[in-house]
Every structure is written in C-alpha cells, then in structure tokens.
C-alpha cells in the first residue's frame, strides 16, 4: 500500500484529492463572515462547550501525534533514490520541518543557511567551496538566503545558479510563497529540476494517522469520529498535515460529562461521571467537535496595505522583524505593532529567537486572502 508520506511533483499534488479536499479556502467566507461555532441538535447529550475543558498535554500528544518521522525519512530516501537532484517546496504548516531540517543522518552534507539574510553581499567563499563538493548535498530553507529587497537577492541568485549548474546529487527545500516569487522573477530558476512537494493527505490518510486509538465520543452523536468527520477535516485542511493536526487538536475537548437537568438524577448518561463530583474523563470521554464547525482565524481585520507585511511573513517564513520590515516596506515599529495584532488574531505566531511564522490554523485564511488579492502563490 502506498504510503501517504511521499513526495510528488508540485503541479500534480492535488491529483489524488477529492474536489472538496482540493478546494482552497474561499475568500468570501473569510471576508464576509467567519463560521460560528455550531450548536448540537435537540436532545444532544453533548455537554455545552462552555462546560468542556482542554485536553491535557499528555493525552493530546497521544490523540494528535506528530507526523511519523520514520515514514517521512523513508519518503526522503525514496526521493533521493529516484531523483538525484531535487528541489522541494516545504509546506508552511511545519509538518515536514523536523524531517527536512535534520537530514544529515540520512547521508547528505548539509549546508545550513545563515541566521539572517546576507544583505548587500554574495555567498561566502566557504559556501562556494562546499557547493563544489561532489558528494550529496542538502540545502534546507533556501528562503533564509534572501530578503525581498534589491540588496538582498544576490546570494540567493548565486545559490540557484550554482545548484542549476551542479552535476553532483543535491536536494534543497524552499518555502512555497518564496518559490512562487522565485519562479516568476529570477531567471536562475529555469535551470532547476522539476519541483517536488510532500503529497497532501486524503481523509483516509488522516484517519489512519490521527484516528484515535480508542473510542472517542463525538459532539452531536455520541459515536466515535467517523468517515464524515475525517472528510470534513480533510476539506478544511486541504490535505495539509500540519493544518489538519492543528484543527484536530482544536476539536478535542476534555470529556467531563454531566446529567441533563431533565434526566433522572440517579441515571447518569452512559455511565459518565458527574463533573460536580470532580471526576475527570479518560480517553474514552474526549469529545470531538466536528471540524466543519470550528471557527478558524480570519484575515477580515486586515486592510490592503497590511497584506504586504503578511505576504512578507509568508515569503520569508521564520524571519526576524528587521527582515520583515525590509521586505514589506514597513517601519520596524509599525511592523512590530501589526505583527502583534496578527498574532492576537491567530494568523501568525512567534518562533524561536524572535522569528515570526504563519500559524497553522490561520493558513487557510491567509492563503485564500493572499491568492485573491493577487499575491502569487504556488497554486496557480
């Protein structure tokens, strides 16, 4: 059986998805009104959402596990075996970060990117020498080699030219929005091999990955999550593992249960514990809200000019404030204030060392808004 964790050509990545899974976030539902949390049907035994708590970290780690590193490593090895030279568009959702940042143990020599983009400078001589190495190379995070400014693209252009001319095996990965910019502007992109990207996950794949080890009660029906739940998950995530996992985590609630007021006081619902007794549910009592009912972050508060900064965050994934200010044309103070607001709206989040990245839950809205406002993405 084909593993869902594999690489496919960028242009064919939606071929195996259903039409509803392939659909990207619709800008009008984001701009004209976010979805509201749903209510259960009449007679719904599910406790009101306000009465449910967050699932503890340990159970969350079991119920929403990280992507399987062994499977991702196998995918990378298979890619190198069939394609000696490969440029990978790494998803924004962080689902392949660990696998692609740490390929050294798999064999290639890793050329780490600089902490900050080299402004006004070309590649250091040391990097030129390493690019001359005939052994297998891997260059992670090519977006760290540039900043969108006329003084910030020289090093990136040199890297791309060297990779295009290189005879030995190599792999490299780049952020999707950065690649969309590169392929439309820089002539050096024409010398690169066809681009690969991780295959999106279908609803069946999500079920086998995130499906619970034991029965979970689902809001509104009291049954374990079924095919419809995972189809809804795949639709909202458009097959992106990191987005799907973030949505899944947001759908899980602690299963403290209670007896409806009109039921007999000594007849607890399905043997559930009365939260007034302070009992806490086990895995069997984790409630799952339908993914189609979840309210995701919206870009509605953003004005047209604000999108320049949001696009800069998408372009430079995991960049620091100075880089984002330069790339967007914002003053640093202004950019910092807007980034704080974007963080409060769930569109971006802080990474390590003062870096800023897109938040997985906000990715559907960010992508649909930037797409419709003429910021070029890889989907075109």
């Amino acid at each position, binding site marked *: 059986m084909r593993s869902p964790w594999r690489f496919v050509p960028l242009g064919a990545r939606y071929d195996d998805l259903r039409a509803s899974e392939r659909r990207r976030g619709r800008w009008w539902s984001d701009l004209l009104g976010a979805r509201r949390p749903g209510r259960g049907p009449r007679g719904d035994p599910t406790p009101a959402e306000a009465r449910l708590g967050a699932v503890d970290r340990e159970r969350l780690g079991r119920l929403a596990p990280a992507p399987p590193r062994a499977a991702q490593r196998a995918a990378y090895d298979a890619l190198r075996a069939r394609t000696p030279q490969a440029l990978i568009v790494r998803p924004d959702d962080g689902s392949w970060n660990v696998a692609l940042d740490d390929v050294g143990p798999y064999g290639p020599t890793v050329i780490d990117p600089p902490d900050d983009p080299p402004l006004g400078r070309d590649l250091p001589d040391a990097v030129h020498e390493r690019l001359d190495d005939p052994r297998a190379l891997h260059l992670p995070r090519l977006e760290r080699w540039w900043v969108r*400014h*006329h003084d910030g*693209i020289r090093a990136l252009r040199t890297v791309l030219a060297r990779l295009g001319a290189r005879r030995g095996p190599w792999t490299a990965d780049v952020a999707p929005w950065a690649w969309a910019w590169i392929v439309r502007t820089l002539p050096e992109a024409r010398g690169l091999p066809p681009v690969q990207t991780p295959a999106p996950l279908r609803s069946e794949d999500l079920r086998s990955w995130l499906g619970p080890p034991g029965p979970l009660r689902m809001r509104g029906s009291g049954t374990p999550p079924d095919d419809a739940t995972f189809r809804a998950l795949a639709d909202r995530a458009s097959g992106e593992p990191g987005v799907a996992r973030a949505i899944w985590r947001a759908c899980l609630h602690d299963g403290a249960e209670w007896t409806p007021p009109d039921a007999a006081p000594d007849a607890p619902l399905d043997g559930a514990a009365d939260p007034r007794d302070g009992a806490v549910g086990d895995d069997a009592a984790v409630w799952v809200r339908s993914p189609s009912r979840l309210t995701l972050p919206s870009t509605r508060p953003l004005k047209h000019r604000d999108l320049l900064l949001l696009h800069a965050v998408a372009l430079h994934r995991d960049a620091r404030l100075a880089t984002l200010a330069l790339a967007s044309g914002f003053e640093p103070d202004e950019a910092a204030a807007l980034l704080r607001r974007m963080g409060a709206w769930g569109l971006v989040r802080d990474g390590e060392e003062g870096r800023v990245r897109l938040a997985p839950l906000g990715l559907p809205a960010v992508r649909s808004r930037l797409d419709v406002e003429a910021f070029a993405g890889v989907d075109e």
Partner: protein
Amino acid sequence: MNGAEGLLDVVRDVSEIPFLRIVAVLLLGFLAARGVSVGFARLGERVPAAVRVRLLQAVPLARLAIALAVIVYVVPRVVAPTPQNLIAIVGAAGIAIGFALKDYVGSLVAGVVAITEAPYRQGDWIRIGSHYGEVRSVGLRAIEVVTLDDDVVTIPHGVLWTDDIANANDGARTLMVVTDLWLAPDHDAGAVRRRLQEVAWTSPWLDVRRPVAVVVREDPWGTRYQIKAYPLEARDQVPFRSDLVTRGKAALRALEVRFVERRPSAADAPGAPDAPSGGAG
C-alpha cells in the same frame, strides 16, 4: 389644432393621473438608483480588487435599467397621445432640443452609448484632456473622476464625440505603471538596467504574475530608463511608483551613477498633464 391645444390633448385628464403613485415611483426610483450606487461602492471596498472592478461596472447598467423602468411606468400614466398630436409634440420638442438642450441631450445620448460601448467604466483609470483619475461614477449625463490629487472632476459624456479617451486598465484589476529615471549618459547601461530590474522585482507592491520591463533610450538631456511594471491593483500605482523611485535612486547611487535634471519643455507648462503617456508617470 394649434400646438398648445395639441399638448393638452396629449396629457391625460387630471382626474385620471395617479399623482401620488407617480411621485412614489419617482421617489422609489431615485432611492433605488442611489442605493445601487452607494451600496455597490461600499461593498466594493470590502472585496478584493478583481471583484470590485466587476461589481462597479454593473452600477451604470443597473441605474439605466431603473431609469427606464420609471419612465416606462410614468409616461403612459401621464400621456395619452394620438398619432396627430405626437407629430406636433415631436416637432415642438425638436425645436427646443435643437436650440436650448442640444448639449444636454447630446450628453444623454453619449451616456447611453458609453454604457453600452464601455469606453470607460466605474473603477477604470482614464485620461480625458488634462484630467487623469479613477472613474467614481457613471451617470446618464456625465462621469465623475477622482484625480490623484483627490479632486473630483465632472466630465460630460459629450466628450465622447470630440476628445480622445485613454483607459489605463479597461476593466482589469491592475494597470501598467511607467516610472522614468534620467541619468547622465556616461555609465554602464547594462548594469543599470539589471539593477533597476531587481528594484522592480523586489517591490512589495509588484504583481509578479505580470511582466516587468526596463526600457532604455537616449534623450537629448540624458539616458532615460523606463520601468514598466504592474502593481497588485490599480489603486496601488502611487505607492508603487514612489517605491520604485525611492529604491531605484538608492540602488543607482550605490553604482555611483549621476542623475540629470530634465530640461524644461512645453510639457512642464501650467495646466499640462502631470502624468505622461500610459497608465501613470
């Protein structure tokens, strides 16, 4: 039968005319036309530029349809013409139009032609004579254009018969912005051209899905570089051009290239257009 009697014969008996209903319909038509203009404009500010352009283009057609509906309702309830009286009325009206209302009626006719042929639409950026700006509304008699200096200029549709109309975006979301830089002739043109191309590529306002071109030519007072590129949407043309000029000059200073001042010409006279050919200047 004289003209005055013929006029009275055309109009229905006063007791047969539903005045209140007519006033109500006129008021309703006015409110509907106003509502369409204001409502679509407000909605257009909330949606992406590509959708806004299509939305605003529908406004003049909607207003025309409302006007026609009101006329079709009101006229038969006021006028009961006989063929003979109609001939007399048309003759009298023709004289009135010919002497007093020629230009007004000409603009009305041009307005209908403009709505159907669409040399300009709401949301388009056009140049008529010395005025360049965004078409804010397309009425039956005239259009309103908001210039880059935030002036509102009312231009009768009658200019359709006499003037050239340059439309920079013609219903599209964006338009080409042409940015000029003049340099002293003694420099490496290839290096400057490559640098300006990088300046354009790295503008945050650039629509990278459209082509970027840097055109070079020699003018008597220096080497002229034209950066031809498209911003994300037409309204971005001002910050886009400002960004190109600001960073272009910074990039060229680093190359130690000298700028020249443009020699005064007829184009600099007061009242001349402040933006040259194409969509911008």
